[in-house]
């Protein structure tokens, strides 16, 4: 076969491996095929991955709710379903244009955070998001339970909790700690169900609307207090401040008022 082969593919294969043209073409072809493979896999599998993440998030939340002492019986008894709402903390109403899916994106933008002045910043957070994802349990038209994510500053760092309030927006139904860095055995006992059991039934605000909730030093003496944890005064103080901030006018105060008036 002395005549030239005009098939470009065969000519390419016939080139010596060390030739510059073949080196470049092989490199290009391999990268192109691999790029198609990788992009294809990513695009095809993305919907499944997104669904996975959403399911995971949902499972985490329902685990959390079930983890609040006494909450599963409450949910089973009411038979209601938990709905997710993103609220605007400034107005205390449902947020316009931000949904549970876009919340993470919105919160990545610094414009959606409000800096807190020294007087406002009871909980030591320095800034507060403008939007928060809360969970409501409706029975008919009435809201019978609301779950509020809260964050405070403890002894070892930030801690996150989920606070459940009954329909009167003043009686605690339960609490779950979702994340903390307190000393194990001391402040870390905020995770103990035995401590969290003292929350249900405790009142948070008095008739004038002032937040009275407190982690007592020692045993609780009023209906606004829960028992303190021995050896974890700063954790307790941090907890008190967290509740005072988040249930106050700069936290969920406007929302709680709106719900209590029946205007939500």
């Amino acid at each position: 076969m002395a005549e030239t082969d005009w098939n470009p593919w065969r000519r390419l294969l016939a080139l010596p491996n060390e030739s510059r043209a073949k080196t470049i073409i092989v490199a290009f072809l391999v990268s192109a095929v691999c790029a198609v493979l990788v992009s294809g896999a990513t695009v095809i599998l993305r919907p499944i991955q997104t669904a996975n993440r959403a399911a995971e998030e949902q499972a985490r939340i329902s685990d959390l709710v079930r983890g609040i002492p006494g909450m599963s019986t409450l949910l089973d008894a009411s038979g209601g379903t938990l709905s997710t709402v993103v609220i605007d903390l400034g107005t205390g109403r449902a947020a316009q244009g931000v949904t549970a899916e876009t919340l993470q994106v919105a919160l990545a933008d610094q414009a959606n955070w409000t800096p807190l002045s020294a007087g406002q910043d009871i909980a030591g957070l320095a800034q507060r998001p403008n939007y928060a994802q809360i969970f409501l349990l409706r029975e008919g038209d009435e809201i019978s339970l609301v779950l509020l994510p809260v964050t405070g500053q403890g002894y070892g760092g930030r801690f996150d909790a989920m606070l459940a309030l009954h329909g009167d927006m003043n009686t605690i139904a339960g609490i779950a700690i979702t994340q903390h860095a307190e000393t194990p055995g001391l402040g870390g006992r905020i995770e103990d169900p035995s401590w969290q059991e003292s929350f249900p039934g405790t009142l948070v605000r008095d008739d004038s609307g002032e937040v009275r909730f407190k982690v007592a030093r020692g045993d609780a003496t009023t209906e606004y207090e829960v028992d303190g944890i021995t050896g974890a005064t700063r954790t307790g103080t941090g907890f008190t401040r967290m509740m005072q901030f988040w249930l106050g006018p700069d936290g969920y105060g406007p929302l709680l008022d709106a719900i209590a008036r029946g205007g939500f």
Partner: protein
Amino acid sequence: MTARTAFWTTLTDPLIRQNPVTLQILGICSALAVTTSLATALTMSVSLTVVLTLAAGVISLIRRHIPDTIRLIVQIVIVASLVIVIDQILQAYFAQISRALSVYVGLITTNCLVLGRTEAYARYHPPLPSMVDAFGNGLGYSLVLIIIGAIRELFGRGQLFGHQVLPLADAGGWFTPLSLMLLAPSAFFLLGGLVWAVRSVRPEQVEAPEFAPPPRPEAAE
């Protein structure tokens, strides 16, 4: 008949006689990191075996046309793409395990074992033997991972595949978990023990000492 025996040897040799982990001490970083439980060890083993076999097949297929100057880059690109695809599949269908494996699936790319096999074997052999060899090496790696993973999970938590096998002392049983087993050093100990065990049974694997210790001075008389 001889061809079949040749395949059989290629496949079974890397299990113990030429085991890539215990003999060549290749790919041990991941072997140490993902063996805290049997499930992660098994997923990692399957992922690595699949990547290794496919990579060997692809590279062997184009082996005559890989320019020598860029052969490592070409091999790594192929391996990396396969790893990304596997990682995406794991994230989609085994989200839980994928989180437990975290970055180690991605690190299969840099696993010396993969590049070692493609560079040393797949570049010189036709696709079928290359894939058999790669599969055998994957199995050899898997064997070590599964042994170490099983020991660590059994003694660290009293479980196998997440099922309680040994009743825990906390729950009224007799077994007190050995937390050391869940820490990285235990994997070194176990791997060391395994290498020692294999080399005791097969003394031909023992490496010749590189240095002779200096002769001990005789006590002055």
